[in-house]
């Protein structure tokens, strides 16, 4: 399932952009595919609120029982929120990666970078769908 309300990276993350108070805020998470590949997630390490990063910077990690994966920033910006629920209950990444299992929000610094990402059709193709 690849919803078309968001953009995707080749690292199997998604970013869904909404306008809040005239600013572009992107909510970031990992895809169903990534959650399935990782297996049971037991720790999520997220960036600090207020930190600024460039596109593709490593900003955190997801640890499952068997593996660890880096989180990369899909688009440049400042971290404005993190999902405390997913820090407390990392299994949300497995049970609902596209919604309740979101990871953090960023204020986009370069909205044009969204065009470098994959749309739902392109991401579906990447998955071999």
């Amino acid at each position: 399932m690849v919803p078309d309300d968001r953009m995707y990276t080749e690292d199997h993350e998604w970013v869904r952009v909404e306008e809040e108070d005239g600013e572009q805020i992107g909510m970031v998470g990992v895809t169903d595919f990534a959650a399935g590949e990782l297996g049971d997630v037991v720790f999520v390490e997220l960036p600090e609120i207020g930190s600024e990063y460039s596109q593709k910077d490593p900003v955190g990690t997801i640890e499952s029982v068997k593996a660890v994966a880096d989180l990369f920033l899909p688009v440049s910006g400042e971290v404005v929120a993190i999902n405390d629920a997913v820090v407390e209950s990392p299994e949300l990444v497995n049970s609902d990666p596209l919604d309740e299992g979101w990871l953090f929000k960023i204020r986009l610094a370069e909205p044009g970078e969204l065009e470098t990402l994959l749309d739902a059709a392109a991401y579906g193709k990447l998955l071999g769908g």
Partner: protein
Amino acid sequence: MADSSSLKTTPLTDWHRAHGARMVPFAGFEMPVQYRGVLAEHEAVRSRVGIFDITHMGEIAVTGPQAGAWLDGLVTNRVAVVAPGKVVYTAMCRPDGGVLDDMLIYRLGDEDWLVVCNASNHEKIAAWLVEHRPAQGVELEDLSDGIALIAVQGPDSPALMGRVGVLSDRTADMAALDFYTALTCDGPGGRWVVSRTGYTGEHGYEIYLPFADAVAVWEELIAEGKDLGVEPIGLGARDTLRFEVGYCLYGHELAEDISPLEAGIGWAVKLKKDAFTGRDALLAQKAAGIPRRLVGLALDERGIARPGAPVLHGDEQVGAVTSGTFSPSLKVALALALVRAPVDESDLSVEVRGKRLACHVVPFPFLPARTKGDPRAERNLPA
């Protein structure tokens, strides 16, 4: 990476694929790493019962009038003196004391033994046995390509085993089967060996049976165990289960450059026994002081120390993690590490992906085994 077409399968491979298992290459086999998920499967074995396809293990028959005495000279534990029906856990060492493999040795009859080795070391052990075989009195036969191995593990395993048709006339023998003992019986396809053994720390059994019988028994266990909540368990949970109860995994806690004394299985090394390969080196190591010790570590900060992560005392590296994961039962990140002895337990940290995470030594086994006594003995686990 091995091309999957070159991987060996088991009689149960098609069943695993058809039932949603994620298959991975493991020691030359295509094996199920998980079905529902590692955490759920782990919990099933700790609280109910699970079944494992571990057909990848190697089984080598050692028979003949000299078989017991000869094996005794090759392994660290005492095997020649045990009675038929007993199972012995032992290491097999190189002359320098490094571990070639850890294994179970079954005495099935006066002159009838079965060596069960790790899949990853199967070829090496088979070759080692052939190379060291005496001119007379010992016959070797590698049975691995015809023997399937199914483990039935968990507090409800006695109930489930009681429903296996082939064992229905052996109820009393099954009830009397002590930890590390075995019985043989006749299945439709040939001889079965059933033992009270396992790699989970729970009350459990392992069934060695002909390939031809494997699918029928597996499906019988699934069907008959439905009300017990039985489920198939992959290699992922097999690893977290053994880790919590402190069982060594070859390639991690044991290796050719690790001695059994360092790895904490000195109880399976009988240095008073007459000559066995590695004895002199191990005696010397004990006299000089065992250089490293396996310790349990609990991380004080968020993260998981994976195998190979350096262990530091202050700024100095004193060892490395051999196994590390999130403990599904205890719900904390734990690790086993081989650390320079004597171990200074102060100011320890593990380096995880460039970051130092503080940690401290904790006793292991992290979780007590329930292989003997009450299969449901209280463990005081976190909710």
